[in-house]
């Protein structure tokens, strides 16, 4: 947090990150464990960056540190090179106008109409009434709520409320939009609608989005990059496709499993035949991501290595626009041949994971 360091930050180049969090730490009073334990992330202009984690992982604290609704104990928040932590009250208020925020429970004022809610940040920014009216109209059009301008939030559906929340967040033309579990209170259909709206707005307004969620669906649908947060630490980050097709941590693997559904249904293993004497059984999860996925790897393994292959489950899906396939098979055969088959598949650029292995006589699941 050296003062001289912050002054030395150069103006951002066009591809420089819009937002940088540097070693953010926060421990709540009365709590022994740190809520945020040295989090550093960079969000590039125009991208949708997701932070996924289970409840209690520190997501909520982290996103609140970005606009300093919560003050980190140590660490820096740099928005376009500006250290927000060093700003005085008025300068921080001005900086916050450049950061929109949408909330899980919408946080709309019940006493104001839709138009009144959207006008609130404009009033706070001291924008004159006539300009405000025009801008509110524009924003209503942007989120498709022109006909509900005079309705009160109590008369809106969840999806409509979040549209108001988004319009309100964008009222002051922010460069960064923070989304705090914006779709977690919505049903799946409405979630898809709101996510599509956020992506569309990102494209149209060249917005940068930082979102937190516990839903894999959200990350998979709209995020470009993702960080997996656990116990206040980023345990994995990168392109969504990479993180969830090649998860390194248990948590990421479990989130990936939510998406690909390749976990073994209960009882599957018990129903499989035992390996014959001298043979072994391995349950493999094969991930097809590249062009190699067009090869007939299963029949090849069966032919070349003499394996019996039993397909347990399979699925084709996409992350963003990148398709992938997951196949779970039970492979029976000579241990050496099974290992060779796995090597062969890996050589073809397939991801092969051993989910469960058993040799004759010993059941390991």
């Amino acid at each position, binding site marked *: 947090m050296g003062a001289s360091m912050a002054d030395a930050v150069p103006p951002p180049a066009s591809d420089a990150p819009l937002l940088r969090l540097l070693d953010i730490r926060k421990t709540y009073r009365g709590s022994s464990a740190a809520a945020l334990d040295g989090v550093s992330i960079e969000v590039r202009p125009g991208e949708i960056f997701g932070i996924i984690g289970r409840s209690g992982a520190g997501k909520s604290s982290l996103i609140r540190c970005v*606009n300093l*609704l919560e003050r980190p104990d140590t660490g820096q928040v740099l928005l376009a090179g500006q250290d927000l932590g060093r700003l005085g*009250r008025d300068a*921080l*208020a*001005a*900086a*916050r*106008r450049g*950061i*929109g*925020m949408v*909330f899980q*429970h919408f*946080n709309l*004022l*019940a*006493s*104001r109409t839709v138009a009144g809610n959207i006008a*609130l*940040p404009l*009033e*706070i*920014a001291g924008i004159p009434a006539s300009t405000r009216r025009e801008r509110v109209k524009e924003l209503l059009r942007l989120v498709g709520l022109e006909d509900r301008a005079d309705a*009160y*939030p*109590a*008369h809106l559906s969840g999806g409509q409320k979040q549209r108001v929340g988004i319009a309100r967040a964008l009222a*002051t033309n922010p460069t960064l939009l*923070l989304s705090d579990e914006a779709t977690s209170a919505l049903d799946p259909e409405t979630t898809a609608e709101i996510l599509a709206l956020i992506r569309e707005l990102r494209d149209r307004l060249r917005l940068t989005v930082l979102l937190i969620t516990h839903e894999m669906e959200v990350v998979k649908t709209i995020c470009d990059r993702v960080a997996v947060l656990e116990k206040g630490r980023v345990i994995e980050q990168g392109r969504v496709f990479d993180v969830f097709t090649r998860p390194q941590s248990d948590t990421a693997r479990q989130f990936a499993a939510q998406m690909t559904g390749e976990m073994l249904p209960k009882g599957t293993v018990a129903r499989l035949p035992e390996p014959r004497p001298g043979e072994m059984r391995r349950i493999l999860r094969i991930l097809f991501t590249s062009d190699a996925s067009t090869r007939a790897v299963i029949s090849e393994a069966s032919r070349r290595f003499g394996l019996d292959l039993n397909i347990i489950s399979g699925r084709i899906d996409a992350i963003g626009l990148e398709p992938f396939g997951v196949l779970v098979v039970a492979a029976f055969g000579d241990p050496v041949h099974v290992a060779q088959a796995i090597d062969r598949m890996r050589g073809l650029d397939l991801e092969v994971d051993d989910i469960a292995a058993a040799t004759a006589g010993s059941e390991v699941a």
Partner: protein
Amino acid sequence: MSTLLNPTMQILLLQSAGETAWMVGVAALVAIAVGLPLALLLLVTSPGHIAANALINRPVAAIVNAVRSVPFIILMVAVVPFTRLIAGTSIGTAAATVPLALAATAFIARLFETALRDVDHGLIEAAQAMGASRGQIIRKVLVPEAAPGLVAAITVTLISLVGYSAMAGAIGGGGLGDLGIRFGYQRFMPEVMAAVVVLLILVVQGLQSLGDALVRRLSHRQ
């Protein structure tokens, strides 16, 4: 009523009703004008709030609680020097209004504080995220969002004031309650007592209905 009460008593009844209206009205106006800022102060300086400050919060809360602890009949007598300072006298309707206003201010401040505290913290957070100042949060979020609760608090206070004002007779404040005691009870005129009670019931019912209607109008929660 006019057939039951002789003309003198009718005039007295009207006069007393006017005194009650004056005492309650003035005390309520003072209570609202002073109680709202006091409630806001109590709220925003409370721990974890937008201007948390124990050095302000604790003494103010203690004073409000102290005023609320003293039984009204004792408060009236206890604040006589203060009453003289404000009203120039320690007896009469104007003098009775001073302790009434004092008690009502402490009473309504706590009710207002509760109503304001009911405003979802998420709304304050949303306003902060927009770059709102503390003043803006108070004016644009806390007070408008709490409006139905504030009106309900005013209704309760007005009704309590009508009751308290009956004790004003102890320091010559007059009013309906005083009339009921002096004529209805002490001079054995049950028809006066009945008239006073019926009138008070009508007033309280009217205030409550009016308050409820206003709360319904202000509330957009459905």
